């Protein structure tokens, strides 16, 4: 695999260098017909130890870089791998078809389901086509149209979240990006079918939450879920965008933090080195987790599902209660 330096994170470099070395020895032994398997095994063991060491010490900022990794699998990669069969559906019936918000139907084992999700692009042209994964109002309305379709046919919904933020262009404001997200939050709370949300990469603020109100919310190990990008927080609160590493730390944006704060239900482990090092394995783990949650939710009625989802989000937030004597009711 040829990688441009842009596709490699600093902490990945020593691992990739070792791997290149191993590949070179393997090539030479094949050419020369010699046996250097002991040397290869030693190098591979060294690599595994190095990886374990590096990836057990990732900072929240390192995880941010992994969540945004140019090789990180995107929504459609998972859709192709997780569903036995799938079909894309298009358009919001109001304005257009948002390429940053995709959706359709799919079969996963015994489950017929509806899926929606933000889609990022791989190369420059594709990235622009997908608007960098930032959906416009028509994207959120398309997602809601499809979710209503699922409700009509009593099918569960899978929301795959991967967006830096919702689009904030002039056009998005003109067509009511706030209204579109707000309406999704409200409508999603009342859906009488199971809703599973999986945060795959970047869970960027309101843009992520706009398809994020689920009975179960799961998150890939190296995904992030944040109210603001670390860079933005650093610029506004610390008045210095370079303090992003500190901001990533303070904002508690990792999957482990989200779990501890009660915002998600489960962390789905990624292969050592991140999802991009073994997409198939990641998709398999994700699929198994989704099916397990769907099976668990299958005992609930429609109204029970809506009530469970409402209560789940109703209880989010942390505050204190002071005993007051002056004002009592």
């Amino acid at each position, binding site marked *: 695999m040829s990688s441009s330096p842009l596709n490699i994170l600093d902490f990945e470099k020593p691992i990739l260098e070792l791997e290149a070395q191993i590949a070179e020895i393997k090539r030479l032994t094949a050419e020369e017909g010699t046996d250097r398997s002991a040397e290869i095994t030693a190098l591979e063991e060294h690599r595994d130890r190095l990886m374990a060491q590096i990836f057990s010490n990732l900072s929240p900022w390192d995880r941010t870089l992994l969540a945004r990794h140019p090789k990180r699998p995107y929504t459609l990669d998972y859709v192709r791998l997780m569903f036995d069969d799938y079909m894309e559906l298009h358009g919001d019936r109001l304005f257009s078809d948002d390429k940053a918000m995709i959706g359709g139907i799919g079969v996963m084992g015994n489950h017929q389901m509806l899926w929606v999700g933000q889609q990022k692009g791989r190369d420059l042209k594709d990235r622009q086509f997908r608007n960098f994964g930032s959906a416009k109002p028509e994207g959120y309305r398309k997602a809601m149209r499809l979710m209503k379709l699922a409700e009509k046919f009593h099918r569960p919904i899978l929301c795959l979240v991967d967006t830096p933020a*919702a689009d*904030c*262009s*002039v056009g*998005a*404001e*003109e*067509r*009511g*990006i*706030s*209204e579109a*997200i*707000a*309406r999704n*939050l*409200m409508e*999603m*709370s*009342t859906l009488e079918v199971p809703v599973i949300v999986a945060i795959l990469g970047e869970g960027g*603020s*309101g843009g992520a*939450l*706009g398809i*994020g*109100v689920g009975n179960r919310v799961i998150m890939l190990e190296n995904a992030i*879920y*944040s*109210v*603001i990008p670390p860079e*933005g*927080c650093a*610029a*506004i*609160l610390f008045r210095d965008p370079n303090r992003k590493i500190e901001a990533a730390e*303070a*904002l*508690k*944006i990792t999957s482990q*933090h*989200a779990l501890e*704060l009660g*915002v998600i239900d489960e962390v789905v482990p990624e292969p050592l080195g991140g999802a991009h090092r073994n997409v198939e394995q990641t998709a398999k783990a994700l699929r198994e987790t989704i099916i397990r949650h769907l099976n668990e939710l299958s005992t609930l009625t429609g109204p029970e599902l809506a009530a469970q*989802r*409402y209560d789940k*989000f*109703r209880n*989010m*937030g*942390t*505050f*204190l*209660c*002071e*005993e*007051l004597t*002056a*004002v*009592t*009711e």
Partner: protein
Amino acid sequence: MANTGWFGRKSKNARKIARQTVDALPDGLWTKCPKCNEILFNKELEKNLRVCGKCNYHFKLSAYDRLVFTVDDGSFEEFATELRTANPLNFPKYEAKLAEYREKSGLDESMVVGRAKLAEIPIVIGVAEFGFLGASMGSVYGEKVTRAMETAVAEKKPLIMFCSSGGARMHEGILSLMQMAKTSAAVARMNQAGLPYICVLTDPTTAGVHASFASLGDVIIAEPGALIGFAGARVATQAGLINRPPNFQTSEFQLEHGMIDMIVPRREMKSTLTKLLQFGYREAANVI
């Protein structure tokens, strides 16, 4: 009910402090309009509900001043006053920030909710306090908004929300984001109960609040010239938005694009709300 006074003993004091802060002008006699630079005598300005007589600029109001200008005299009864902000993320310097704004504003948080009467109609009302950390929405703000909606449902009353917010309370991280989902879900419950919900967007109403309960009113009103939009000013600048129309993200822009029902000047706010309540409350009474 123990608190029969205007705002309850505790809040009465808070209100006094809030007014003193707002009124702390150089010589206490006049104010310069930030928009047209006109020198305005404070007594006149006060009589004019803090609207510039020359250019119609609407000064920001503290939450309690808003209540004085809006609800029937002596009818406001605050609830959820026992809620206190925590620091769930252990965010650096958050406690100090909170202490600073408690001192400055005389309030415990950036949202005030309670029961009141407007033109004799019993209502639940919420008012955001921009003077407290830019009316950013954290756990307490979200909880208060949600409780206001739940109280409206439980007591079958209409709800009026005077919205304002610079965005999410970053210090509470992802928990502040979740307040968007929580408050929006509570609006669904109001809809199911058939109760009127009126949003009044005041300067500024942006980001997480605009993209949640503030955009879900049965009727949405804005004060003139308010900043209203999804992307906060800083984010919009960072994104380097091109071809921005001159009135971008104002009340007037939102009206033009069909996102609000009307722009109502402050002096007509109470009569407008009364008419809407008379329409909606009757409807609600029939439903229930």
